[in-house]
Structure formats: structure tokens, C-alpha cells
């Protein structure tokens, strides 16, 4: 394996006189080159037809929506007249909901910044690449780590904000409980087995996902004048 190969590196501008003779195929960094014995089909028509169906269905749904539901338009912008509540578009309402608990520096700058940073670095951590089944080994120790972390995070989100941040804490508890099931009841049917095969990365992302949805849904539908709780059928959405 570690046989030393003697290469002579020559560089020359004239590609005709010095044709390239060496091709280095790197492992791992290239797509798989080995032939896999899997069913393959011609892109035309198999994929193109599927894409066409997807495109037409999607366009049709949008057109129907556009025919039957009008885009909202209120009166002309008036800087003197602040609506109550003034809401951002739906994809920012999770952040606006956080603003209710933490000062803007934390909820508007620090937390979204951390979320973006966390998303960007996902593929650069081995834990996210290997995604080993969480409960495969060291079950008891891991269980302790998980619940200590849950306790610390719960304490942070319950006591550091202006109000307890239940939209983060309840999903945290729910996810922690479900993820612990395989550790507490090992080998109990297919579902538990499936849960046991999930990785820590999976669970953390799931918490992030459920918490984001919870914050957004609360912000969109359950917040009325003065950012007090309300019901969507009483004060409407937005």
C-alpha cells in the first residue's frame, strides 16, 4: 500500500507537446463510480413526466388559490396610526413571539444569528455525519446527560425570560421523553426500535423544528392586541 511511486512533475504551457498523462481519482470526494445493481430508467420520459405532473399540479393549486383567495390589502400606510398588534410576515412571527420573552438583542439578533450559524455548521461536525443510533452504547450515562441538559435548558428558558418560554420548553420535554423511550423500554416493538435508531442530531433538529413551528403558530394565530393571548376565531389571523 505505502509503496512509493516516483512521479515526475512537469509543467508546460503547450498542451499539444505535453499532454496530460496522469489522472488522480480521489476517493470519497467524488460521486460513487462503482456500478450499483439498482434499477435505472431513462430520464426522458420517466423523470420528465414526473416533473411535468408535479409542476402542473403545483401551478394549478396556486392558480385556484389566486382565483378564490385575494391577497390582503389594507388601507394606505399611515405612520401615525400603529395597528395593534403590528405583525411581521408569518416566517418572522416566531422571532416576534420570542421578542415577547427576551429583549431584542437576544431574540432579534443573538438567537436568529445562532440558529443560522448552527444550520451552517451542521455538515462540519462528525456527530451529524455519523448519526449513530443514540442508545447503542453507554445507555445509562447518556440518559443522565440528556436529562441534565434538559433540566439546564428548561431552567434557562423558564427563568431567564420576561415570561417562561413554554413554546420552547414543552417541545423540549416532549422530545426528551420520546427520545428516552427506547432507553427505558428497550426492545419493545418496531416503533421503539425505530426511535432507538435515531441519532442525537435527529432529536435536536426535531426539537428546533417543533419549537419553531410552535412559536410561529402562536405568533400567527394566538396573539392579539398588546401581544396578549387570543383565539384566531376571535381576533382573526394577523
Amino acid at each position, binding site marked *: 500500500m505505502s509503496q512509493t511511486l516516483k512521479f515526475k512533475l512537469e509543467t508546460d504551457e503547450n498542451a499539444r507537446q505535453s499532454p496530460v498523462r496522469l489522472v488522480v481519482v480521489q476517493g470519497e470526494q467524488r460521486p460513487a463510480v462503482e456500478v450499483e445493481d439498482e434499477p435505472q430508467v431513462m430520464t426522458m420520459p420517466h423523470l420528465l413526466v414526473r416533473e411535468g405532473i408535479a409542476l402542473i399540479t*403545483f401551478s394549478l393549486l396556486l392558480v385556484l388559490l389566486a382565483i378564490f383567495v385575494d391577497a390582503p*390589502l389594507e388601507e394606505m400606510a399611515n405612520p401615525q396610526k400603529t395597528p395593534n398588534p403590528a*405583525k*411581521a410576515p408569518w*416566517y418572522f412571527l416566531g422571532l416576534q413571539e420570542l421578542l415577547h420573552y427576551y429583549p431584542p438583542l437576544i431574540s432579534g439578533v443573538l438567537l436568529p444569528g445562532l440558529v443560522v450559524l448552527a444550520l451552517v455548521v*451542521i455538515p462540519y461536525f462528525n456527530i451529524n455525519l455519523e448519526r449513530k443510533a443514540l442508545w447503542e452504547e453507554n445507555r445509562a450515562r447518556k440518559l443522565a446527560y440528556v436529562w441534565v441538559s434538559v433540566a439546564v435548558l428548561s431552567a434557562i428558558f423558564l427563568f431567564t425570560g420576561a415570561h417562561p418560554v413554554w413554546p420552547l420548553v414543552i417541545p423540549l420535554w416532549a422530545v426528551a421523553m420520546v427520545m428516552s423511550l427506547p432507553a427505558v423500554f428497550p426492545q419493545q416493538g418496531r416503533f421503539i426500535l425505530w426511535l432507538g435508531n435515531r441519532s442525537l442530531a435527529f432529536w435536536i433538529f426535531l426539537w428546533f423544528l417543533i419549537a419553531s413551528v410552535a412559536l410561529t403558530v402562536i405568533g400567527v394565530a394566538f396573539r392579539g392586541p398588546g401581544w396578549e393571548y387570543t383565539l384566531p376565531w376571535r381576533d382573526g389571523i394577523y
Partner: protein
Amino acid sequence: MATSRSILEAITRNRVYRSIVRRGLADTNRNRSLAIFGNFFLHIHPVKVNLRAIAFTRTFYLGGLSAAAFFILVVTGIFLMFYYHPSVPRAFEDMKDLEFVVYMGLFLRNLHRWAAHAMVALVLLHMVRVFFAGAYRPPREFNWVIGVVLLLVTILLSYTGYLLPWDQLAYWGVTVGTNMADAVPFVGEQIKFLLLGGNSVNENALLRFYVLHCVVLPALLVLLASVHIWRVRKDGGIYLGSPGGEEKTSGSKEDDISTESKAAD
């Protein structure tokens, strides 16, 4: 059948047609291959695809549908630009004109609005799908990063468009958001001023958001999305969790749905 085929052949067997499309009917695998790699728009696809890769339930076509939403947005957006002036109070009056004067103007605006919301949702769902599939694994790490940037650009596109109707919803939605910029330490006020062209949301902000929305951000999105798609193709297409067993040896049981279900069967 025979007649429709002869009609098709009559259309495709002449010098003019062949100068545009350099092949005959896609009735042989050779011509089907040529249909893909001889076509500028389709060459992002390989000529053959793995059957597992094109199953709807693998990707839900979320990336492709995001692109479809963007295409609809470009078309409707260009039409809307014909009727829109980024100035106060003309912008709002143009909304009223779209509703009451312009032929199908309301439909145009509705379609643009709903496609915009759909695109944000689709891009978010695409990211979630890619995460759960583990498709950010090497060599695709950087493509994931590009994807995160594309998500941000998509949200910014939607957000800059949100101000353009210049109604109460637009004005206060953007005011709430840009007030966040104040919270950025040290340079918050400067960032807000740069973004709005003033200290509050006003006509300058409308113009800036308009230019960002119609020129800068779409151009950036097209550029990044092109790189994004190109890299997917260069990395071997849709991530399939390598049935060769790369993951099995590393001890991971996750994501490898096919082997998992095979083992269960």
C-alpha cells in the same frame, strides 16, 4: 396511433426542426439520451436516473417545486412591474388599479403573493427534508451551506416584496422587522439607516426594497441556485444514502431506509 406518429415524424423530419432540435422522436434510448444532454435546459439531469431517486416520497420534489415557484414569481413579477411605481402614494394607488382597473390585475397580484408564501414554505420544507435524509454529508457539505444562504435570500426576497404594496400591513410589518436592526450592537443604527435610506420606513426605503426585490436579490438567487443545482449534479445527483454500505460499516442505522426496511422484511 399510426397517423399521429406519421404526423409527428412529418413535423420532426425536416431541416428547420432538426436545426433547432438535433434529434428525431424520443423513441429510442439513443434519442432519449440526446433529448437530455443535447438540451441546454435539461442538461442538469443525467441521462439515466436511479429509480429510487425519482420516487415522489423521497424528495417530495421540494427543491424542484421551489424553483417552479420562483419561475412563477419571475413571470408574475415582471407583469406586476409594468403596473407599479415605487413611490408614495403611487405604490398604493397602483394596488388599487391592479384590483379595479388592470385586466386580471388582482389575479396577477394574488398569484404573486401566494407563490411567494409557497416558495418560502417549500424552501423551508426542502431544508428539513434534506436534514432528515442526511444529505449534507461529504462531499455535499458546502452545498448545504449554499442552501442555507438560499433560504435567507428567499426570506429576504419575500420580505422586501412585503413592503411594496405600501398598505398598513406592509408598512408595519417592515417597521417591526427593521426595528430589530436597532438591537444589533454598535452598528445597529447604521445598518438600519443603510437598509431604509433613512431612520424610519419611508419613500427611500420603498425604493431600496424595490431595487433589492426586483434586481439584486433575484440575481443573487439565480446565481446561487445555479451553483446549488450544478453541485447536486456533480456530487452524483439526489442523495440516496449509498446502498454500497458506506453507512452500514460506519455503524449508522439511520437514514438508510432501504436497508432498514429490507432487514425488517
